[in-house]
């Protein structure tokens, strides 16, 4: 049962709807939840892409956080943060941009300029910004905790 028909709830200090452009902006302690997924940040901009309920949410913060509990769509638990989070509910893709950090179940931690993840399939891409900096800052870095190697048998 695909993810697209789960409802999205949003809380924030203030909100501003612009029917005409189909863009709504929420500012101040913003919480977006959808099933097990919770995004928190300082400012959220949602633009409607089409009239079938597909939207694109762009949440910024310093940093903005993601916390996904195991839910009906995928059993994996994910946490992370980045300067900016983009979420499109159509293909359940989350993109963390700007000093992005994503913690996968089993103790992996991914640091990268850009990380995109399909929240349903668990498919994750990390993309460096090319031009490896002095200490690999433009590069993708994955750290594996030792105990994770033991029980991550799935």
């Amino acid at each position: 049962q695909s993810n697209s028909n789960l409802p999205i709830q949003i809380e924030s200090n203030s909100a501003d709807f612009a029917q005409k452009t189909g863009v709504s902006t929420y500012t101040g302690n913003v919480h977006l939840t959808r099933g097990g997924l919770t995004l928190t940040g300082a400012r959220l901009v949602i633009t409607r892409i089409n009239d079938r309920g597909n939207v694109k949410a762009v949440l910024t913060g310093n940093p903005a956080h993601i916390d996904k509990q195991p839910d009906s769509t995928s059993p994996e638990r994910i946490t992370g943060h980045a300067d900016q989070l983009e979420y499109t509910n159509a293909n359940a893709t989350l993109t963390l941009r700007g000093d992005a950090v994503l913690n996968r179940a089993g103790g992996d931690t991914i640091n990268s300029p850009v990380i995109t993840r399909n929240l349903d399939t668990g498919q994750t891409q990390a993309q460096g910004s090319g031009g490896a900096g002095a200490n690999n800052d433009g590069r993708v870095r994955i750290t594996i905790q030792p105990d994770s190697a033991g029980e991550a048998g799935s």
Partner: protein
Amino acid sequence: ADMTAEDISTYRGCPVAPPPLVLPENGDTSSLIADSAELADQVATARGDVHLERDGQTLEAPFVRYNRATTQTEARGGLKYLRDGLYLTADKGNVNTRSRSGTFSNVDYSVLTNGARGQAGQVDSLGDNRYRLNTANYSTCPGPTKAWLLSAKRIDLDRESGRGVARDATLKIYDVPVFYTPYLNFPIDDQRHTGFLAPVIGGSGNSGFELATPYYINIADNYDATIVPRVMSKRGLQLGGQFRYLFEHHVGEFDGQVLPYDAEYGAERDLIHYEHLGQLSENVGIAAMYSRVSDDDYFDDLSNNLANTSTSNLERSIALQAVQPGMRFTLLAQDFQTLNDDFNGLGGRFEDNPYRRVPEARFELLTPTAPFQLGFDGEFVNFRRDDSVNAYRTDARPNIQWTHDEGGWFLNSEAAYRITHYDLRDLNDARGFVTPTQDTVNRTIPSFKADAGLRLSRSFNNGWIQTLEPRMQYLLVGYEDQSNIPIFDSGSATLNYDQLYANNRYTGLDRVSDANQITLGVSSRIVSPNTGRTVGEAALGRVTSFRDLRVGLPNAGTTGYGDDGSDYVASGMFSPTETFLARGVVQYNPEDSEIDRALAGTTLGRREGYQLDLGYRYYRDYRPARDVFGSDDDTTTNLIPGQFETLSQVAVGARAPITDRVNLIGRWNYSLEGGSNVESLAGIEYRPSCCYAVRAAWRRFVADDNGNQDTAVMVQFVLRGLGQFGNSVTSFVDSNVFSPTMQNDSYNSFDTISAP
């Protein structure tokens, strides 16, 4: 035998370039860095200058696929891989970082522990410490063209066993194939491991060209064995073996050699040697020894080690010893095999085969008390020898000693009463200047000794200390005519400063010299402040007799004693620094006003660098003269009564490092009496590179019973990292070139003939 001065480790070659990677600090957390990565469940695929650190290993490659759960890692596009002891680059490969097993292809490797490096079609890592190099080459030399290189279908390196095994291997010297072997086992570290030791290549006048390949078997940690097959062009195949054991209270060794058919000699020849030392209980010990060779010329023909060729009889004995505080009981049975062909001695102690002691029972008591000590030395011996006078000798020497030691001065005295009884048999065979008349002889000799000495010292301002120890001893020993007692174990002792204070100037018990004499002597030592090292030593002493000495020893040559006392004995040693030592002894005979004995020796230089040893030895009339004639195998030796041989020999030894690549060693032992070379040796050690060394030595020495010289040439290649080929030149050059006082743990000095 270990190496000459600067030990060349046979297993380590030239250092390899330090790898561009670094091992992860702590082995457990691991990380992966890349330009981009895709992760799906357990598999991460990383691209672009990927750097993976995991389980103490580091891997870099343009493409890495890595399974987080199984730790199976695949890398393509040219990888670099490092783990402790091994660094390699390869086109591609896969490795399980947890089990450390994997395969790499088109590899360029370097072993960090012993500097080995090379290429391999494929490298299989078979777990933590074992790699298999397929269609590989192996060398420890730097640079494109290798001084030596081993190319083989397969090379297994096992850091656990410390051995490398090559199959279908060809050894190339500067790319020229010189040696093929289907199997080669070589050391890759310095532990005691089963496997071939370095083969020996050499040659000598006696045996022609020879090749020996010792194989060492480390059976268990308390016993091991070495098998030595040896091929000699003039003699044939010889098999040698050594087996050693070491238990908590017993240690022993068995050596054997068998030469089924010696072409030169025309018969089978063999050697057996066994030694054992042990404690049967807390205070009962056993020492056993047995040596046997098949024929008299065994060592002269088959050994180029001078200590062996100069041996004239081989001992077989077993001794039991029981001890209590102050007491010791010894039971000994002893026999000998004599190696001289035919030796026409003068009878008595001048026959070449010594008397057998079957058995000897000795009891020694000296109460551990002060100031009085009760002592008793008792001995029963059954002397036996074919066609000679034989005897049961019983000797008892009760004595009482009194000592008072105040540190700065001491007094001690001893009174003793010796009773000796001989039961003689086969009187008609008696020879050797003694013709006993009756078959039992008794001897009773009282003796009294008073010994006094001062121990003085003074210290100079910078802490140096000089000691001065004058000493005086009065000795009175009763006279009894012993000229009708045959001689079984007596001889004249070489005089030295300590011997001036001895109770008897003859060895053994068959002659107890009369004495009414006073010994005056003084010794002094200069000691450095902090290390306590003796930098200078001197001693001077003489015995003055109050009446002529009457107990003589037939055909004795120089004894160091005349009618009115002994020679003057003076000795000195001076070693201001660790790099210079001079030593001398002079024994001047006032009656004949000539020198009876003189030794002088100096050693200059340092262990690693330049060294010069000079030695002179002079012993006047030290043994009966003899004339020797006949060829190698059947020589005849006739002792000439009343004539004596004087030893006067110069010894020079030098080691000169020419550059840091070449070491020249040389030794020359020349006898001034009769003007002949006793031993001369020249050797070169050439170390052009850190990965190999060549040693060659030429040696000419007195080998046979008739003084003929034999020449031996030894060649040794040390392919560092592959072991040592060719016998060790040190087998006849002392393994260590420093004289004893300068290098505490070595007793050899360069101007000497090597020890067995």
